[in-house]
């Protein structure tokens, strides 16, 4: 499908009987691995269920892989994989049987479903355990089976709802590695998480939601250029701070040190000009990279990505 956006959303609003879960979102998601981040209750799961066509928007339009999930839900779901956050495994079936069954539910013939079930369980590291009953699996193994059922039918897009939820650090690391590998296999992924470091580790694009509003959407790579700049000068600190503040920059002063930003590369140029103008004597200037958390905790600041 080339470079077409995998998701296009215009003016999307969804409310649950008066409680607004998503409010007038305009959003596009390109191919690749996209992180959907936000606190609990931000609207991430609602967004995923809307993409699947399991919920209908109160207003607005959306397309997923070129199809409207409201009017063509089966066409959308035939090409999607979904890993729910909560329990979704029958405890009395083997992993191989369950994953093969979900492949058949996606329309694969039984023999092919069984073959792909084995291959996919191998991919997620459960080749030895595939004939064990799911009720005997640990949480980490269950998460892997959930991932396997989401990708067994070779979907165009996989929706992962908190895939690392409930896992210990080692399990979390392994799950994030698997998500990264999906990107390497050219599978489009939208992964929701409230853990920002998970998104930083796995995604190339990020969508931030906050209480139903779109906070930011853009490539993760650009975020590194939007950290704050640490400056050390020899004199006239207050005058320099005042000059930078007049340019609309956020400035914190501590002794002869200033923290300016966050912001883009124009900050450095402004610092150089104002340091010279204030005759402050620049000792050093270091840009720190911004984490998603930094940006997420500054909802008032508009950042163009």
């Amino acid at each position, binding site marked *: 499908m080339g470079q077409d956006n995998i998701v296009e959303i215009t003016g999307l609003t969804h409310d649950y009987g008066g409680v607004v879960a998503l409010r007038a979102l305009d959003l596009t998601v390109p191919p690749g691995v996209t992180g959907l981040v936000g606190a609990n209750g931000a609207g991430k799961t609602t967004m995923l269920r809307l993409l699947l066509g*399991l919920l209908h928007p109160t207003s607005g339009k959306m397309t997923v892989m070129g199809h409207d999930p409201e009017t063509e839900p089966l066409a959308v*779901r035939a090409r999607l994989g*979904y890993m729910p956050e909560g329990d979704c495994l029958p405890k*009395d079936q*083997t992993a191989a049987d369950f994953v093969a069954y979900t492949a058949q539910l*996606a*329309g*694969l013939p039984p023999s092919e479903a069984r073959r792909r079930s084995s291959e996919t369980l191998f991919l997620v590291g459960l080749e030895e355990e595939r004939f064990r009953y799911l009720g005997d699996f640990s949480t980490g193994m269950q998460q892997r089976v959930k991932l396997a059922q989401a990708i067994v039918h070779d979907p165009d897009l996989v929706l992962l709802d908190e895939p690392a939820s409930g896992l210990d650090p080692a399990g979390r690391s392994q799950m994030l590695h698997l998500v990264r590998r999906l990107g390497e296999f050219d599978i489009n992924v939208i992964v929701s998480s409230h853990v920002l470091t998970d998104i930083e580790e796995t995604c190339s694009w990020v969508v931030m939601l906050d209480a139903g509003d779109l906070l930011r959407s853009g490539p993760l790579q650009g975020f590194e250029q939007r950290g704050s700049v640490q400056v050390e000068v020899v004199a006239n600190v207050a005058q320099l701070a005042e000059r930078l503040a007049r340019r609309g920059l956020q400035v914190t002063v501590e002794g002869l040190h200033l923290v300016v930003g966050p912001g883009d590369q124009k900050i450095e140029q402004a610092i150089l000009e104002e340091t010279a103008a204030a005759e402050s004597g620049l000792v050093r200037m270091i840009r720190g990279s911004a984490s998603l958390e930094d940006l997420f905790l500054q909802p008032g600041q508009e950042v163009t990505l």
Partner: protein
Amino acid sequence: MTDQVIYDRGYRTYDGERTGPSGARKAVYKDGIRRVLGLGRKAREKIYPWLMIAIALAMAAVVIGVHWFIGDLAQSLSEGVPSYGELFDLYSWIGLLFIAFAGPWLLIPDRTRGVLSVYFSRPLTVDGYLVAKVGAFATVVGAIYVIPQVVLHLGLGLISDDGFLTYMGDNLDVLWKVPVTTLAFVAMHGALALLLSAFINRPGIASAAFLGVLIPGRFIAAQISEASFAGARWTSLLAFDHLPRMVRDTLFRDTVTYPAEAVGFGAWTAAAVIAVSIVISAILVRSRYRRLA
């Protein structure tokens, strides 16, 4: 010795056939049959269904044996050898106990274990899911009723003094009466079992509720129908377990009189109540699952 190498096979794309919603429904149907029969499940989940099947087949074998060993005596004591219609009385208890297990087991685990969220992320509608589940239910439960009757019919034909073909020719009516009676039993009991299973989250409680509505329920309905208040007779139709038996009696010309018949209702009324029960059950179950999807 050569070095051992583990190859990472990566991920293989799939460009083959995709059967779409019809394939999804077929998968649910096949899984439903496997679930009810305990196939692909732990051994303890196979015990109950296969015990019921074994009992039903054993009953057919016993009746054939009775005819074989004491055929002449049986003829002279023909009242004592169960007819096809009377055999439904025996089978209906096996069927009732089987349905009490099969209905809850078919619907409840998918719901309580959250598996529906995976199923409905596939090209599968709520209606498709329910139709496939009901199809699986009807196939297995129908077989519980019909297969022993087929075994009995063939067995009696084989031991008949008149010869197999003559016996078959003389009893052609069995070929439609048995399926129609089976349909009445499966429809009435199935509608009730699936309705309760759609709203109760514990299989054991759903099974108990099903048996409670049918067994004590018929005595209660019969008692109330004899009361003197206006419209009391209509409560006899709430003895749901009697309704398919009234259909059976009419088809096989048996002479048991049920409370509903005593107050003037016939087999057609019973059939109509069964049909209405199916419609109400279908509406409520569908509504429940549309909210869950």
